[in-house]
């Protein structure tokens, strides 16, 4: 099968500022890809390109064989920031249902429409192991529980590709690993191609097929153990960067622009 997404020498920027240039990569069906890099390097910008919210300045970008377009129902998206807060007293499965039918004009009117919607939500909640969370109010869920609900919301429309922006950001290491296992299970069992933005590779590294590393206005891509080497990252950053390994296979990247981001525990 051909690639789901293909980029050739893509350059992207806002107004006068160039975010990154000369990105060439391809993403195959059913791949689990991590998008890694320091804060502000342009990881979310890559998602905006794929979502069709931003156009490349140069180069060629194809998604499902055509240029990315806004409102593509083949993509399930979990953004980094959310409207839901502590005071949102709405049952979680209601949001998952909206993930299935929220773009429609009217509420489900016939019993069969209503049942199809309910079943789509139930299936999505089951896929992320959150069936029990469905009846609880969104405002009462913890960070990790909320991420599962957002994931279910994105899955409800049966997307072929998932874009997850920093889902691990506010989670402790144990919760992060649990969520990564859920996502990895989805990628394998449902063959959903998944891009996951993170600034720490370590919770992900055992599950990944590919890494897209964005830093210093440039993009490196490949197998995790090919990209995350002293030589490749030194070339990417343009300054001496060292990749250290600990006894459990964790990586520490030292000397990057804000290396402390990569040493998170």
């Amino acid at each position: 099968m051909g690639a789901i997404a293909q980029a050739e020498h893509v350059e992207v920027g806002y107004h006068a500022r160039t975010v990154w240039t000369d990105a060439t990569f391809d993403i195959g069906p059913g791949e689990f890809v991590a998008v890694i890099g320091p804060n502000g390097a342009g990881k979310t910008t890559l998602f905006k390109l794929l979502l069709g919210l931003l156009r490349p300045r140069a180069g060629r970008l194809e998604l499902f064989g055509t240029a990315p377009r806004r409102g593509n129902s083949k993509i399930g998206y979990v953004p980094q920031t959310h409207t839901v807060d502590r005071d949102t007293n709405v049952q979680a499965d209601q949001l998952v249902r909206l993930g299935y039918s929220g773009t429609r004009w009217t509420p489900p009117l016939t019993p069969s429409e209503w049942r199809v919607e309910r079943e789509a939500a139930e299936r999505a909640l089951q896929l992320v192991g959150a069936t029990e969370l469905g009846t609880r109010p969104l405002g009462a869920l913890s960070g990790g529980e909320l991420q599962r609900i957002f994931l279910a919301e994105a899955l409800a429309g049966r997307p072929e590709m998932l874009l997850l922006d920093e889902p691990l950001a506010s989670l402790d290491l144990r919760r992060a690993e649990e969520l990564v296992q859920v996502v990895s299970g989805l990628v394998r069992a449902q063959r959903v191609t998944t891009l996951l933005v993170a600034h720490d590779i370590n919770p992900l590294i055992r599950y990944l097929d590919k890494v897209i590393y964005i830093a210093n206005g440039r993009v490196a891509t490949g197998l995790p153990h090919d990209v995350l080497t002293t030589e490749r990252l030194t070339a990417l950053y343009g300054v001496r960067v060292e990749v250290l390994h600990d006894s459990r296979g964790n990586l520490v990247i030292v000397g990057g622009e804000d290396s402390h981001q990569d040493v998170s525990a």
Partner: protein
Amino acid sequence: MSGFGWVWWNWNLVADLRVMWQYTFIQSAFEAGTIIAILAGVVSYLVVLRRSSFAAHALGHVGFSGAAGAVLFAVAPIWGLLLFTTVSGTGIAVLGRRAANRDVEIGTVLAFMLGLGLLFLAFYRGYATEAYSILFGDIVGISPSQVWFTLYASLPIFVVLLLVYRQLLFASLDEEVAEAKGMHTMLLGIIFMLALAVAISIAVTVIGVLLIFALTVTPAAIAVRLAQRPLYAVLISVLVALAATWAGIFIAFYEVEPTSFFIVTIVFAIYLVVRLLPGLGPATQQARWARASAPALASGGRPGAAPTPAPETELP
């Protein structure tokens, strides 16, 4: 504006209602009050969900200036209300992705608009009763033709809200995803603000600009503590608005105090009861969940043994 002390309670509801129903102005008050309460109840759920209560407050006050201007130019106040609230509402919607984050801008424009209202009042040489009824409402002063106007003004809003309800709900709960899905979140925001503007303009007749919260915010503030499904919350919100409006008109018929006072008091009383009832609202549920799971975490399991993952502790 004020009650009518000349009729006495009968303690027989049916007989009381029969007595009231002989008066045309009471019929009109009930009819207009019903339409307004339903619209305000529906819109108020979206106000609470979108955290737009400050916008609702601002639109009410802006409406006052519009009404004062209309009176000055010898036009019915409702036209000034509609003009000022719809224009300002659209402005707020275009200005802010979420009006909740635009307090400073809204407040700044609001102060200027109120200043205009004051100027209009200063030019106006007539009686101040017009201004008084705009500020505090005058449901029993409503004429049958105004009832028809209320109906005509709210019908299109009902139709539009029914059509975009699903999208509006989605855009209010998860704006980022809605936008990525290609939905027109700004257009939805404008539709919401226009619905709010009309709801406020006609609700001013019942409750006045100063008390507008009682119908455009509080009913839903009550409902979201009682229901976690949008449909039920909207229904409860409408029921609260209806009950308060009907009871307010009913009581005011027998008492001398103004109708708006009774409506506001009833809504506030329900709100107090709901707030003070233990175990409602997401915050208390969160606390209860944390309490229930604290000892269970320590012992490595948790009571109930539901197959969910153990509740998580938040990182600071």
